[in-house]
């Protein structure tokens, strides 16, 4: 169920897998934020976001085409994207561990995920949201390490187009009442993001992870994720 590089290159794809994901996520955020602002700046943001969504979903970037760039192949300017976030959650360590370890719970607070399906105790299939009914991005991952109540580490399987890994650590907070949750998510450089693109995509991805962690905290502390989506507003 994973994209293979050869498949992608046969379809005019010149944007690498990690960068496609980044484009999808960043584009989605920008579009939503831009559209809800309604101002001229907001529309510009939405337009830029739409462009990113397109290149993320199709894997083709017109600008890269014109510039003769192709981050889907070749060595390019490789780099890791690593994001770290920490939050204190007022719930017991074991409870948080058990909830996270059931990976199928992740889409409840990771907004870019549509679903995670556990194949067996270690392996799972992850599906990201795909805007506009375009082909979904799917990859497989496995748990590579875990210590009950303390740590879970996962990694996409070799050959996945979106190579990524993550780790979450649960540490008892100083007052003994809550739990510090330390999350690290890393996207890998196999067909990585070029320096310039990385500079402005990184903050968007970091913010996304930050919001995921915040939603996790709310969900665990209050039993729900706060929202205003679906409430009335004027014209």
């Amino acid at each position, binding site marked *: 169920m994973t994209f293979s590089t050869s498949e992608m290159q046969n379809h005019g794809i010149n944007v690498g897998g990690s960068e496609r994901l980044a484009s999808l996520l960043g584009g989605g955020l920008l579009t939503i934020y831009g559209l*809800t*602002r*309604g101002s001229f700046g907001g529309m510009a943001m939405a337009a830029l976001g739409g462009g990113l969504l397109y290149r993320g979903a199709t894997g083709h970037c017109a600008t890269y085409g014109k510039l003769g760039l192709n981050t889907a192949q070749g060595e390019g300017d490789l780099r890791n994207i690593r994001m770290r976030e920490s939050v*204190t959650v*007022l719930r017991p360590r074991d409870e948080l561990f058990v909830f996270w370890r059931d990976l199928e719970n992740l889409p409840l607070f990771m907004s870019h995920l549509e679903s995670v399906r556990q194949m067996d105790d270690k392996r799972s299939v992850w599906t990201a949201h795909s805007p506009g009914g375009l082909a979904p991005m799917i990859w497989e991952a496995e748990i590579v390490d875990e210590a009950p109540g303390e740590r879970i580490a996962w990694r996409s399987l070799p050959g996945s187009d979106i190579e990524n890994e993550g780790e979450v650590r649960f540490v008892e907070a100083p007052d003994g009442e*809550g739990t510090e949750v330390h999350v690290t998510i890393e996207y890998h450089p196999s067909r990585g993001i070029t320096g310039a693109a990385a500079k402005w995509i990184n903050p968007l991805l970091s*913010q996304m992870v*930050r*919001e995921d962690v*915040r939603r996790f*905290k*709310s969900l665990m*502390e*209050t*039993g*729900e*994720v*706060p*929202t*205003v*989506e*679906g*409430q*009335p*507003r*004027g*014209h």
Partner: protein
Amino acid sequence: MKAVCWNGIHEVAVETVPDPQILNPRDAVVKVSLTAICGSDLHLYDGYIPAMRKGDILGHEFMGEVVAVGASVENLKEGDRVVVPFPIACGNCFYCRKGEFSLCDNSNPKAWISEKMYGHPCAGIFGYSHMMGGYAGGQAEYVRVPYADVGPIKIPEHLNDEQSLFLSDILPTGWQAADECGIKVGDVVAVWGCGPVGQFAMLAARHLGAGRVIGIDYIPERLEMARSHCGAETLNHAQIDIQEALKEMTGGRGPDACIDAVGMEAHGGGPLGWYDKAKHLGRLQTDRPTVLREAIQACRKGGTVSIPGVYGGVVDKVNFGAAFNKGLTLKMGQTHVHRYMSELLGRIERGEFDPSFLITHRLTLEEAPQGYRIFREKEDGCVKVVMRPQTVH
């Protein structure tokens, strides 16, 4: 349903919008029986609070009847008559557990905006910009209330809407402002601004043991209200020098506590007032801190300056050295309404006071644009506007 929408600076309109729905298990929907325009709504009206968008439904002071509850709400049922606190609080987080409900960590779905501005996210507030969560407000026929198992307080039959409504914001806000002054019996408390929050701060200071309460404003009918309903002496800052007058009234010491019940849109005179006005108009500073400056200057050494008036951002030319070298205590913040509601409801039930004395204008919801205008211009003796959606009888 009908709702009051913010459509730009000095532009509010009553529009027909979809009815609110239950979105989360701990939500309720309340059919609004009475709602009010708050002085802090005027900051939105004047365009000084960031992250407002055209079409946002206003209003954070409201009460009404529960018409729907989410699956997890067990303490409320359809038909209950409730007042809803303006800050939205989960009841579970570090802050809520300490009783600091207006600092709730979980109630703002757009936490990143205030986190960027202030370093940490603010709690959600009904109808008070996307920085405070973008929640639809209660100047409407119906409103969705999140964490309904924590916020709303049931109102007994024998109290009418006008006696109960102000538990949602301004009564606890005035009360907290006085409470945080740590008033000792006989203390002198000066209150800048005899608007709704100032009136209730004076009332609270009296009830909490202040020996003298001094109200400062320039509008005669508000000063009269402070004298007749809140047991205050009053000073008109258009006629006299406040610093001199306060010194004279306190044997040169200055008030033990000074309350800034004005906030970011103070009307200052003199060169500094014009300086603020110019910077404010050019959006070079978000706030005009005239009253804050005066309160710091006037307060006795070792006293407390308590700030219920709303500030939004950067202030200029505040004499922090005076605050430091006089060893002042500064207290401020959005009100922990949930903490005070039941105590204050008890005081109203026992007849200690009736907060409805504040109301000068009773309008329908459809008259909201006029309500905002006369409240802002302080026309027609306007102190407090309440509005009743016409569908409620």
